[in-house]
């Protein structure tokens, strides 16, 4: 049986500067020894969204201190660490460079291996850390940057079933909030306003409804919200609440319809699994209306719903450390010192490109 593995994780792909120490035990279970996340929320709030250059500037000033904190809270030193894992994509390139170079430097100075981790793989494998799942499972990743449904069959074995063909779901929440003048970050505020609104007042579309393919689309919904809102401007507090509630209802209806097909597909592909799991991760997974909708959906389909605790749903470095530990435990090769950051890096590289394929390759 292999020894336990202690990994330092580094995450800087968006607007959180994060470091974490995670131990993987010989039996495959894991312990989070520390999980430090510094949010740059206040720095981006005046701009109503993440500004890449501001994010990069904040990461480079904060990261070494955050790593020191993570080591101190775990009551350990770099001497005891077996490997360093740093997010090298996908994400904002300026932040990725800071995290990856810091990881490379620490690896060079200590002579320990460096694992360049795909941020999405971190989300994908979190359920193996928190809930010890080993069977293939379905992962719904819903954040400001991603909306994907993946089959996680094992470490390094991911098949994308669906992705958004335009906006990410979190982006649709944030843009809805922005046009209604709600403070950043918009997602939680839309949820709060929706609680007192009428979800049936505005007739909004359910994008992709009835389509055979499993993909998502949220751009049309966002535009419809804008058109309805413009028609009723100037908006009263009640209008805003009703728009939020109607938008959120359109989102939950859409997720239920789209995912229902995804669950059916998974059942057909893995008939031997008695009670398969749908794991939900990403910042949007914090939305209670969405969680409720997913709970009832999975219940109807005989799936169990696994939602990681909020601090492991949103961006964090524990999931990056864990992904590194899982790769090391399998004996996968560490990365070389010339590994490049990748702003675009689909988890399933064989998946057909649906969105934004440019010089840097497929977006997701």
């Amino acid at each position: 049986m292999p020894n336990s593995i202690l990994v330092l994780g580094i995450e800087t792909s968006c607007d959180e500067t994060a470091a974490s120490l995670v131990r993987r035990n010989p039996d495959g279970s894991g312990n989070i020894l520390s999980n430090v996340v510094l949010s740059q929320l206040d720095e981006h709030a005046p701009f109503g969204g993440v500004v890449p250059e501001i994010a990069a500037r904040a990461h480079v000033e904060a990261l070494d201190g955050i790593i020191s904190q993570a080591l101190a809270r775990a009551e350990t030193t770099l001497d005891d660490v077996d490997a360093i894992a740093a997010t090298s994509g996908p994400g904002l390139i300026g932040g990725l460079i800071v995290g990856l170079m810091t990881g490379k430097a620490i690896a060079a100075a200590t002579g320990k291996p460096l694992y360049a981790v795909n941020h999405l793989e971190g989300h994908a494998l979190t359920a193996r850390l928190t809930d010890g799942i080993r069977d293939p499972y379905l992962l719904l990743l819903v954040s400001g940057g991603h909306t994907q449904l993946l089959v996680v069959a094992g470490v390094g074995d991911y098949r994308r079933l669906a992705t958004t063909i335009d906006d990410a779901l979190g982006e649709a929440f944030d843009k809805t909030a922005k046009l209604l003048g709600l403070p950043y970050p918009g997602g939680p505020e839309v949820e709060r306003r929706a609680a007192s609104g009428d979800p049936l007042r505005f007739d909004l579309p359910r994008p992709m409804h009835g389509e055979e393919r499993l993909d998502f689309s949220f751009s049309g919904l966002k535009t419809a919200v804008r058109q309805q809102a413009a028609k009723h401007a100037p908006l009263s507090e009640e209008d805003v609440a009703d728009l939020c509630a109607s938008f959120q209802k359109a989102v939950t209806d859409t997720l239920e319809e789209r995912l229902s097909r995804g669950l059916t597909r998974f059942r057909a592909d893995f008939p031997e699994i008695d009670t398969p799991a749908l794991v939900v991760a990403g910042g949007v997974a914090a939305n209670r209306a969405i969680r409720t909708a997913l709970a009832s959906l999975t219940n109807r389909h005989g799936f169990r719903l696994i939602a990681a605790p909020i601090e492991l749903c949103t961006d964090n470095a524990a999931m990056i450390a864990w992904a590194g530990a899982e790769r090391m435990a399998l004996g996968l090769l560490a990365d070389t010192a010339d590994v490049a950051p990748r702003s675009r890096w689909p988890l399933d590289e064989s998946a057909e490109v649906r969105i934004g394929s440019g010089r840097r390759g497929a977006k997701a």
Partner: protein
Amino acid sequence: MIILALDSSAGLCAAAFYDASDGTALGRVVEDIGRGHAERMMAVIEAARLEAGIALKEIDRIAVTVGPGSFTGIRVGVATARGLALALGRPSVGVTTLEALAASVAPADVSVMAILDARRDEVFAQVFAADGTPLTDPAALSVAEAADLAIRHDARLIGSGSPLVASLLGQPERAISEAGTVEILDVARVGAGKTASAPPAPLYLRSPDAKPQEAYLLARQERLAQ
């Protein structure tokens, strides 16, 4: 004192091991790569280390260029330096590209103005006394402002921006070098003389270029009522 100096602030990717006690370059590797510093930096450090024939843990401090220069390049260097400092338990210090340029001509008998072409009709500039003491703060200036400053301090001009200023002044003889990049051993020398009080922080001299967005907003009743 052994210094590891790093520079990725412009087109070069450079590392040097420098013994400040006797002023010897133990190892020096400079690659003119233009871009892709994140990929090359560790290999350049390793090549210089092999040339120096020492272990990383034998260094006493790390010196890194903090700009002004390419925002991305600066962050490659600063993140690397701070990561090394954290893991080796050694201090790291920041050296500005303007300081390193000025150091390349020191000791001089006149004051020197280091000037980097910042495009958009601007330069990054700073004036140093003959002994290397800074006389002004580093700043982004129009070419005309830089020309005024050069006259006020009767300074010789060095750096990629010096032809711009010299030609505006009609005094080409004032420019003594048009170097757009720094010599890595100058970075090491300047870094050796600094007090390691705070970790190196990028010197951008320009704001991130972001503006608060209002255009998206729809009218709200309570806004009209105010």
